[in-house]
């Protein structure tokens, strides 16, 4: 049989034997990202260094090729990031020649705008909101592209693709614009901004499969590695960094773990895993029975946790 070249393979894939696109989700996301560039004056891509925002960067590259991505990336740095994530972030923007803006939660704390949480469950996750809203105002961003997905959490299931935020960054879930067909209405008043979610319709598995298919590089903490850890509430926490509060009676043990999300270290638990390649991660996710946010303690605080944070302007 004749060998199919990469090019031919893709050709058929895009055509689709059924006259339909091979990856409807990818094509939908590219359409959304192009709408942002066309409808807004000062868009920005919110970049956390996590797999979802890395996927967004790849999709944005595809949307505008052979031109560069026509907007900057912005990272709201909690100061509690995994060092591997920061290193990865800097390398990525360097390679792609993109503009990166970093704003620090530590500055908001130093300016007295927010107060650091204390105690066992102290996290900077909530504090990010103030830093983000200040940065949006500082740069007059009118559209912020984010990697949130509707399958992550119940409140997010109701989120629009173009989600209008008022001057205070707040989400009014009862007064959302209807979104029909694929028409996106980005008309806003001065002072308002729109949060845009191009991968709204992707599931966690869709993202991982895409990363595998596209051979996208991601930070090393997503893969199985040895780490000093301790157990609390049935979850595994990193004991390598003093960011995570650990009581003296919480025993440190070495485990082979990986992270399923790379949020603030203080609220991101690890999972025991042997998956050290993308392919193994994908098959692990496929067989997994714990949802992604199950490993994020901030959502467990209360059933309505996410909805409350969103109303306050959380990303």
């Amino acid at each position, binding site marked *: 049989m004749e060998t199919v070249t990469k090019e031919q393979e*893709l050709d058929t894939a895009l055509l689709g034997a059924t006259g339909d696109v*091979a990856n409807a989700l990818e094509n939908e996301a590219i359409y959304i990202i192009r709408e942002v560039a066309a409808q807004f004056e000062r868009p920005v891509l919110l970049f956390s260094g996590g797999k979802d925002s890395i996927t967004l960067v790849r999709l944005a590259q595809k949307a505008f090729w052979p031109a560069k991505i026509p907007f900057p990336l912005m990272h709201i740095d909690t100061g509690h990031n995994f060092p591997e994530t920061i290193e990865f972030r800097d390398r990525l923007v360097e390679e792609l020649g993109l503009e990166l803006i970093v704003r620090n939660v530590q500055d908001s704390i130093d300016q007295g705008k927010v107060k650091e949480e204390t105690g066992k469950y102290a996290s900077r996750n909530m504090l990010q909101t103030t830093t983000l809203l200040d940065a949006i105002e500082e740069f007059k961003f009118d559209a912020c592209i984010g990697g949130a997905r509707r399958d992550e959490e119940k409140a997010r299931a109701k989120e629009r693709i173009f989600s209008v935020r008022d001057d205070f960054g707040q989400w009014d879930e*009862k007064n959302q614009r209807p979104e*029909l067909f694929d028409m996106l*209405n980005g008309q806003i008043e001065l002072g308002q901004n729109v949060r845009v979610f191009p991968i709204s319709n992707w599931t966690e598995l869709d993202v991982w499969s895409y990363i595998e298919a596209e051979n996208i590089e991601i930070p090393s903490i997503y893969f199985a590695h040895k780490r000093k850890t301790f157990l609390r509430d049935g979850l595994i926490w990193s004991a390598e960094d003093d960011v995570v509060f650990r009581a003296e009676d919480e025993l440190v043990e070495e485990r082979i773990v990986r992270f399923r999300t790379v949020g603030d270290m203080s609220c991101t638990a690890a999972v025991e895993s042997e998956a050290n390649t993308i392919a193994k991660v994908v098959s692990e996710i496929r067989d997994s029975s*714990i949802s992604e946010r199950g490993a994020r303690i901030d959502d467990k605080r209360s059933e309505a946790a996410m909805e409350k944070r969103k109303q306050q302007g959380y990303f």
Partner: protein
Amino acid sequence: MGFSEVSSQKKLVTNNHIKMKVLKLATAGSVDDGKSTLIGRLLYDTKSLTTDKLEAIEKTSKQRGYDYLDFSLATDGLVAEREQGITIDVAHIYFSTATKSYIIADTPGHVEYTRNMVTGASTSQAAIILIDARKGVIEQTYRHFFINNMLRVKDVIVAINKMDLVDYAEETFNSIKADFEELMRKRDYQEQKITFIPVSALKGDNVVNKSDAMPWYEGQTLLQHLEELDLKDIYNTGTPRFPVQYVIRPKTDDFHDFRGFAGKVYGGELSVGDEVVALPSQTRSRIKEIHFHDKKFQTASRRSSVTITLEDEINVSRGDMLVKVGDLPTIDKQFTATVSWMDSDQLVPGKKYVVQHGVNKVLAKVDRIHHKISPDYSGIDTDVSGLGMNDIAQVSFKLNKPIFYDKFKDHRTNGSFILIDSQSNSTVGAGFIS
């Protein structure tokens, strides 16, 4: 593959997940028809609920003193909803099987939420209408059917639910089916495919697994039906339309003269060499290249987001449209459409709105409201001064410049538009061009 095999798998996902087909599905049902329970059941029986989500459902069901798992807790997202025990907006729910990824747009079925149902149906290729077997076809059912038919959703499943509460009686099913068939005679879009399935979402009969309690039913289960839908047939086809979203001009040494038109292909395919006309300028050219990222392709399929270059340097900008020579849409500064009104402020003759037709925006003035249409098939009302929230009506518009449209019945994308209020910037209505 037998169905028992499917449901016994741990996770119903294939290796080539990334090339999987996506089916968007709308649901409609009245309060207490058990819509959320049905969706919860679909998730549960396809093993799509994760352990932590299941635990949360078990915990809350127990707290509330229920005898069974309340699957509706899997979908009712917002605090306000949980307090009132009803769904108030469009929620999106995801699950996958070996052959397809499903996205359910879960919309509430109250009279006051016609707008949500229209919204959910607009992005869907298939719909489930729920009927409570104890109540049969009620006024709400008319409305749900009307909307799915108006939006030309190709495949509709009428799920007659709560069969366990009518002793799984075939007569009840047949009598409801006959009532519904009566209703079907009145529909505008006659080609719509309609399938009746007796189910009990609570007990799990005929949702994913075949029911033992209804041996008289020989048809497919709800999921079997969805699994066998061919996406080739279910996406609305028409003639190719390429609205230009964005012009790509890299201005780099390597791509000095590159001028690409980025957009999504609707209706049909476009290929290299096709003779095209750019609208509104009516300038002709030929497709030189089709790019998707850094690869070139011979043909761009429906719904692909590509970048097209032309043989000639012609002036094309956002909102313009490329179409094939000899296959022009209507180019006009006026049209009549069925409008679904979604705002608390009334639509009145003489008022101006922004019409967003695909990625193109023009100013529009309401010329005339011909008549209101009752979404329960009870007729039309010609004595109308304005449209209120959830009204559906035949309306004529005059535009400040021409748009390039097809009739909605011929082209679901190029025949639809949204109305934007230029004061509030809100999306206040949707229209389907007649």
